[in-house]
């Protein structure tokens, strides 16, 4: 859901950017470690007993409590060397609706044992600069956490935008939208004014993308997130600029957002700006690894 936070967590433990990690949403697990491990938690700030945004050396026999999110909604727990879970269709990710991937195609539960792929990778800690008490004196920046709400999301006009009536078009941009409780990794439902189309009749099913905002007949917009379906039959009013989607992923139900128009040129600038901040953070981490 937040690939930026995932990249940073992996970099902090010396992994490839897209190595599989645990996605922790709002309430974190308690973990017992049977081997010396090097871990990092990035994304939302959690109030448990591991530091946020720093690598942490965890000796065999320790227990960690991730705690509850106090800012943001999702964090990624990476382990040096990665998890020893068999890839399915080229990925270690879990696809819960289909019941495949990850650990037995389901969310993790109490009692699950996760094998580590490379037990020796915890020794990476020895090459880190400015260490203290099993962690470090520096941290990675939280690039996707909201500093204020409603979170501003730039959107590109969707194919069916013009088919909505004038009042709905205005309401889409004027309203403060609240993420509903019936939201998940497939899509976030937004509570706010109902959006109505000028013309009736169904549209032909078409392709969707991450960040597509679709509006079914009941007028309640749904923003498609990481597990979204590839095609859909609901009108598409807008698509969120790709650079802004990770910030939306840091909201839990109750969080609020606000849409602003953008064109492809601005979307490109937003990508480049975010890309530069991510590169700078990764360079900083690499430097602390002596690279």
């Amino acid at each position, binding site marked *: 859901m937040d690939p930026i936070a995932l990249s940073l967590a992996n970099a902090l433990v010396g992994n490839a950017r897209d190595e599989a990690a645990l996605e922790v949403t709002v309430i974190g697990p308690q973990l017992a470690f049977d081997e010396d491990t090097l871990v990092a938690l990035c994304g939302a700030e959690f109030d448990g007993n591991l530091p946020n945004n720093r690598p942490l050396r965890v000796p065999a026999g320790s227990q960690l409590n991730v705690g509850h999110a106090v800012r943001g909604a999702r964090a990624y727990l990476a382990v040096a060397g990665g998890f020893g879970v068999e890839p*399915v269709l080229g990925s270690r990710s879990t696809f819960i609706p*289909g019941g495949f991937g990850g650990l037995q195609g389901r969310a993790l539960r109490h009692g699950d044992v996760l094998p580590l792929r490379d037990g020796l990778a915890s020794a990476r800690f020895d090459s880190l600069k400015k260490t203290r008490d099993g962690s470090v004196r520096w941290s990675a920046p939280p690039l996707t956490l909201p500093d204020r709400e409603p979170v501003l999301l730039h959107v590109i006009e969707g194919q069916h935008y013009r088919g909505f009536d004038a009042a709905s078009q205005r309401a889409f941009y004027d309203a403060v939208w609240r993420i509903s409780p019936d939201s998940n990794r497939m899509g976030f439902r937004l509570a706010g004014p109902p959006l109505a189309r000028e013309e009736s009749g169904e549209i*032909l099913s*078409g392709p969707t*993308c991450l960040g597509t905002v679709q509006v079914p007949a009941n007028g309640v917009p749904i923003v498609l997130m990481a597990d979204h379906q*590839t095609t859909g039959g609901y009108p598409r009013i807008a698509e969120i600029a790709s650079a802004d989607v990770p910030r939306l992923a840091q909201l839990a139900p109750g969080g609020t957002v606000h849409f602003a128009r953008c064109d492809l040129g601005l979307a490109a600038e937003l*990508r480049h700006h975010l*890309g530069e901040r991510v590169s700078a953070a990764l360079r900083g981490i690499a430097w602390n690894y002596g690279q």
Partner: protein
Amino acid sequence: MARVFRPKAIHPLGDCAAYIEFSEELDLEVNAVLQRLANLVHARAQPWLRDVVPALGGLALHFDPDHPGVHGDSLQASANLVAECLKQLDPAAEEAPRTVEVPVCYAPEFAPDIDEVAKKTQLSVGEVAELHAAGDYRVLMIGFAPGHAYMGGLDRKLAVPRRAAPRAVVAAGAVAIANDQTVVYPYAISGGWNVIGCTPLAVFDAGREEPSLFAAGDRVRFHAVSKEDFLKMRG
């Protein structure tokens, strides 16, 4: 097909994809050509292209908009690629599609909506099953879920709308109908179509060499099997 096959419009789909639209309505000829076009685009293996998704009336190109290969204009790069592939394509050439045979058990315990469909269409339950199995179907699109095939060619006599409220859980392999199409649910999920039977075949298996039983463009035929045979086949 004498008509010239050309995109009607190119719509941005966010900043990392484009929708190349050929038809706003369901047109089986257009859909068939689309599948071949999508295969050609995919085969070109452009380094900036992440995915090609054929839908009912057009196809989506998902790309890396910052890749040097798009020369700063991903919509134009997409349009150019499609235009080049269209030149390669002979719309009049008939390709023999693969045929997938699907056994279906239409027995009441696998067909929770068949009574309602029979009532609405003023047919007997047996006639509903017969008409469904007699059809010659084409896979128009894979969408909604991995391996979920939208199939056109449902007999007009069986046209019923989607259920007013979707079921929380539809069984894996459930065969369902709505309007002019039929689908087979790849795994247990919520679904709003009218369930009239079930197949013992594994519609989607992530561990299989070809995970999806169906591919867009396939021809599909259903045939009725007894509950006994259904249980044997499912294992």
